[in-house]
């Protein structure tokens, strides 16, 4: 294992962690709204949230490429106003990981929120608690295991992301090269033994994350 390998592993781990952190507030808000509220068009929102799970990752990547490229709606604005680029930078990796792993967090957290007895929240309100206080002292702690499991799943997904990442970030050595991109390139170059070494790391990381997630879920039903 060379220092470049460690750089790749380190980069993959911290971008995945950062993306998980990034989707946390938005994902929880979305999950809570889906669990507790109803409105016309709710099924459309549900479908959109689930799309990155079902669509081919490269297709999602293509949509992101068009949106965040310098000629796209969002990317164009960022480039013109702030000289800020997303495509072909580490920020694109962050974006790809976030979009692809968000549905997993939302699905797990939504189930967790739905399982919290709404009566508990109602009584808390009669005791004078504001909505925020109810969320942070009653809803979230009771849903914590499910949320935690969802976060770990999202993290594991982010670790392994490939299709959308290669579309919008490319595989730039030292800048956007993640474990999965590096493995792909090794295979392209015929460097199979190196690919297998990286693969080993990938498996260990993913296995740990998913195992912890399952553990949390099992504890909950005790």
């Amino acid at each position, binding site marked *: 294992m060379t220092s470049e390998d460690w750089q790749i592993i380190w980069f993959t781990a911290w971008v995945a962690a950062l993306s998980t952190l990034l989707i946390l507030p938005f994902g929880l808000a979305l999950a809570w709204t889906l669990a507790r509220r109803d409105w016309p068009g709710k099924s459309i929102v549900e479908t959109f949230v689930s799309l990155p799970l079902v669509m081919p990752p490269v297709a999602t990547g293509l949509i992101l490429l068009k949106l965040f490229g310098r*000629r796209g709606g969002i990317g164009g604005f960022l480039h013109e106003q702030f000289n800020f*680029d997303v495509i*072909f930078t580490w920020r694109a990796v962050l974006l790809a990981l976030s979009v692809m792993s968000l549905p997993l967090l939302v699905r797990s957290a939504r189930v967790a929120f739905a399982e919290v007895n709404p009566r508990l929240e109602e009584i808390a309100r009669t005791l004078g608690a504001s909505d925020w206080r109810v969320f942070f002292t009653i809803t979230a702690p009771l849903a914590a295991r499910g949320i935690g499991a969802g976060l770990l799943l999202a993290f594991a997904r982010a670790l392994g992301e490939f299709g959308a990442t290669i579309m919008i970030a490319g*595989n730039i050595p030292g800048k956007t090269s993640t474990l999965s991109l590096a493995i792909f390139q090794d295979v392209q*170059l015929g460097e199979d033994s190196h690919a297998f070494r990286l693969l080993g790391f990938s498996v260990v990381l993913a296995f740990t994350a998913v195992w912890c997630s399952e553990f949390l879920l099992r504890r909950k039903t005790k």
Partner: protein
Amino acid sequence: MKNKFLFLVVSLVWFALPVRAAEINVFAAASLTDSLRQIAAQYEKNSSDRIIFNFGASSTLARQIEEGAPADIFFSADEAKMDGLEKKNLIDPATRKSRLGNSLVVVVAADSALQIQSAADLTNASIQKIALADPQAVPAGIYAKKWLEHFQLWSVIATKVVPMENVRGALAAVESGNVEAGVVYKTDAGISKKVKVVYEVPSADAPVISYPLALVKDAQQPVAAKKFLNYLDSTEAGDIFKKFGFTLRD
């Protein structure tokens, strides 16, 4: 009586056809996409054989052939990939021929105001990202890297490089506007209206670009493939290649 005769004819033709119409699998460099498609269309007018293409980076294609992918013909964008397969005894050396040449150009988006007058201009701060086919593996990227190494500019420019899967990917990156410039083949620039050539690399500065082709040893249709190989050697095919901007090396 007449019906029996008709039945005989139909069944003879029916059973004979599969023997006659072959599917020829051609693995070819991405930069050959448009020219080869036209040549194949021309060929298929006079033959019942069908040409199935697999276009991609020559490095990827070579790897696939190594792993046993069903190819009849390999048409690479550099000699090194062909050498690799020859060493592994995967191609028929008797059929190997260096057919085409090409040249490198620097392209920018059609609406860009960027000017390049030399390799050194690529170090300009206004160029933040340069798209190349992956310089570690893909011929177009390797050629571009050699060109820049020739001027000792590679280490500076390498930090700006966005490596793409194949040369058409580099072209697309320039078209999208997400990179300021790209180095591709002159023939690629020719097929895209969304980019313009701002600099043509003089042949003296660049390495020799050579496209070899050969019959794959385990070809499933060697007879039909050889026929197509001969056609690729013909003047008719040569004219089409020249039309797209390739040079002929024989």
